[in-house]
């Protein structure tokens, strides 16, 4: 294809801009990985960018993985992700199926009841008092699972998917004597697996990344999710608990690499599954954007 000089310049500029974006987005992540693998003393002495690890040391990872709080956080987060997502998906499927049926008399009022909560909320404090005091969930695992049992956007994604299942299949199943539960599990869900995958992933990533409810409701350190442990290490810069086994002179140096190793350890699960799930996520972003 012939190109004018102007066009060529435009394309070149475009590529340069996008390359710059890739570097700005990707380099900080790469830096974190390099720094986490670096020799602590060399990293602290370094005054500039990293293009590869400085020396090579797995000390930081050893300390991170030995740290009891990281282990507790990991274990708890796995529990919150599995139990929380289980409850999420169960309730969201039931709601989405029921609201995707035709000829249900109370469908519209219930839908209005649900949609209204997207636009108006009682606020943080009444929620906090309800969950923490009235329902006695303060400092229990329930506080991180039950109050977020349904995400309305995910409910809408799944409802939209269920609505696209042909009604004739449902009717055929009904003639064969199937009730709504059978239709949901045998007909509608198997035909909506991509949407179901999207919703499961959104919920699971949400639980993995959540920290605020734990900050508000959880006091006992052995119930801390990983993100709350991370917050102590990264935001309030509290790495002492991990460096106690190291002599004080090295403590500061190791403390630096520990931060980076912690980030890697905490983000790795998402990074590992991310390439496989990307297409599903993209699909989900689009279904979610389609107007109800």
């Amino acid at each position, binding site marked *: 294809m012939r190109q004018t000089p*102007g*066009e060529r310049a*435009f*394309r070149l500029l*475009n590529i340069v801009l*996008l390359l710059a*974006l890739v570097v700005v*987005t*990707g380099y*900080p992540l790469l830096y974190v990985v390099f720094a986490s693998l670096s020799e602590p003393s060399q990293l602290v002495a370094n*005054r*500039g*960018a990293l293009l590869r690890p400085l020396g090579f040391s797995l000390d930081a990872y050893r300390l991170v993985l030995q740290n009891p709080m990281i282990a507790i956080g990991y274990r708890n987060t796995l529990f919150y992700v599995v139990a929380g997502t289980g409850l999420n998906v169960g*309730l969201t499927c*039931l*709601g989405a199926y*029921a609201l995707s*049926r035709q000829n249900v*008399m*109370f469908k519209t009022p*219930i839908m209005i*009841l649900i949609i209204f*909560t997207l*636009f*108006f909320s*009682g*606020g*943080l*404090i*009444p*929620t906090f*008092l*309800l*969950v923490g005091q*009235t329902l006695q969930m303060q400092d229990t695992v329930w506080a991180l699972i039950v109050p977020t*049992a349904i995400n309305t956007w995910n409910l809408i994604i799944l409802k939209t998917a269920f609505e696209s299942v042909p009604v004739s299949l449902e009717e055929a199943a009904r003639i064969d004597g199937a*009730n*709504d*539960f059978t239709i*949901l599990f045998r007909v509608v869900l198997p035909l909506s697996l991509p949407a179901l995958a999207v919703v499961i992933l959104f919920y699971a*990533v949400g639980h993995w*990344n959540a*920290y605020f409810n734990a*900050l508000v409701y959880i006091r006992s350190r052995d119930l801390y999710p990983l993100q709350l442990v*991370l*917050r102590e*290490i*990264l*935001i309030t810069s509290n790495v002492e608990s991990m460096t106690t086994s190291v002599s004080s002179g090295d403590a500061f140096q190791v403390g630096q690499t520990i931060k980076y190793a912690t*980030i890697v350890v*905490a*983000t790795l699960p998402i*990074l590992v599954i991310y*390439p496989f799930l*990307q297409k599903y*996520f*993209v699909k989900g*972003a*689009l279904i979610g954007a389609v*107007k109800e």
Partner: protein
Amino acid sequence: MATSQVHGLPLTRATAPRTSSRLTLRHRLAKDLRRNRYVYVMLSPVVAYYLIFHYGPMYGAIIAFKDFSPAQGILGSPWVGIQNFQDFFSSVYLVRLLRNTLAINVLDIIFGFPAPVILALLLNELTSPRFKRVVQTITYLPHFMSLVVVVGILIDFLARDGLVNNLLVAAGVPATAFMQEAGWYWTLYVGSGIWQAVGWGSIIFLASIAAVDPTLYEAAVMDGASRFRQMWHITLPGIMPMVVTLLILRIGMMMSIGYEKTLLMYNPSTFETADVISSYVYRKGVLGMDYSFTAAVGLFNSVINFAFLIAANRLARRFSQTSLW
């Protein structure tokens, strides 16, 4: 099913006596409950969830008009009218909180909103699908990282002895403790938000671009339009309805800034520019246990948000075919 048809038939006759309208309703209700009994079984936990965890707090928000103490409970606490709201309106924090909330939102609308639109346009101009996929994969990634990690990286890179300052010093610029400077907070908040969201945000615009009629481009090429002209005169107008709708909805969320990122990013030396309504409510309410007062502040924020959304929806309806309801 068969019985319901038998029931339905005579009642829908135009000649049915007047009194049957109530009967019809009752019959329809009975029919509905019978036919959809499993549907309602499925709905009951869902409705219960929304009533308890969304409408419960709306009821609980009446403590904004009371002098609430946990010992007396919501009903037992004495009414104080709009005292809590008056306290907030006369407090020195009001102006600061409103200013920060508005400033961060306005900056995000000016810089954060167009960013994914521009990215989508640039991605669309790429001729190499491979490079396009690389850019997309990398820019979507931060969307899935937790706020704790993103802010943690930010704090580390921008520390006085962090990567950014090291590079600045090497270039002859004096070091700044960015996270401690109130003057830098808005830039960093909005900038890191763009960093995290621009890729993911571009997906919807890319989909919108893909839906533009390809014959328009063919016609433009026949008329000798360059790639840039095609982008300017075809792609951009093609996605404009989507852009306008999303912009209006974004404006509808003008008064909402979550506490999640603010609580991680701010510190006492940046409160002046960082503190927003939600973070203030968290500090005074959850930490300070000043429940009634902060419930009032939160309710004030919810009501303003709601008003903004209603107004935005009106606008969306007028300027484009789409609206939220």
